[in-house]
């Protein structure tokens, strides 16, 4: 099963993204604790892209694709044509460092890497694809 959602790069649209993911996955018997974590990871990825690659310009579009295989492997693709914001190039700062520096950022990447099995980036048809995968039991 595949699902698609197109959205402008406004942080006010994050709620719509979360609802889209929940509605798309609800037929696939995913435990609530996993569902909440997956929604969180995608919220983090989309808000990072909106802020860092699109400067929250609502005229810029993101496409979110969800594909659920028969073996319950979840594949999420976030497609855009902004600059690439590759979280694999950022190492997760130690929590203690974040606390000492009174920084509000830096936690999102840590969350995504903890929740998803894999995060990869590539280009297709001149667009950036960020693919996140999660194998459900």
């Amino acid at each position, binding site marked *: 099963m595949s699902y698609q959602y197109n959205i402008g790069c406004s942080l006010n649209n994050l*709620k719509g993204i979360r609802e889209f993911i929940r509605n798309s996955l609800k037929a696939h018997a995913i435990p609530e604790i996993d569902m909440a974590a997956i929604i969180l990871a995608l919220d983090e990825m989309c*808000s990072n892209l909106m802020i860092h690659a699109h400067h929250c310009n609502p005229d810029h579009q993101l496409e979110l694709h969800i594909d659920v295989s028969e073996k319950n492997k979840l594949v999420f693709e976030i497609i855009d044509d902004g600059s690439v914001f590759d979280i694999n190039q950022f190492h997760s700062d130690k*929590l203690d460092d974040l606390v000492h520096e009174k920084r509000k950022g830096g936690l999102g990447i840590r969350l995504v890497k903890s929740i998803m099995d894999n995060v990869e980036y590539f280009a297709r048809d001149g667009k950036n694809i960020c693919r996140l995968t999660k194998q459900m039991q």
Partner: protein
Amino acid sequence: MVHIKRLQENGNDVIAIIGEIDASSSIELDLTLAKSVGEGFSKILIDCSSLEYISSAGLGVFMSYIEEFKDKNIQMVLFGMKEKVANTFTILGLAELLHIRGTKDEAKKLVDELSV
């Protein structure tokens, strides 16, 4: 969308977060905590019983106050979290950096103990 209510009880500033905190709304939490500190409260209780969702933007707000609270001897205890919200704190290991309790009574007790 989030609503934040403040109520003062026996010297505690009780801040109830109602709804969802994401990158668009974390500023509300930040402003509320800043206001509480500005008004001189040294015991802050965060009622999370109606908090449905929190992303790293909201967690980052709590994190960013840890040092300031230490310096100013301000105690903050969170309570009443739903499991799905608590899990977000656990994934990040924040449960060890922040004071989190199940009920309001437990939170009150802890904030008093920490304030001695």
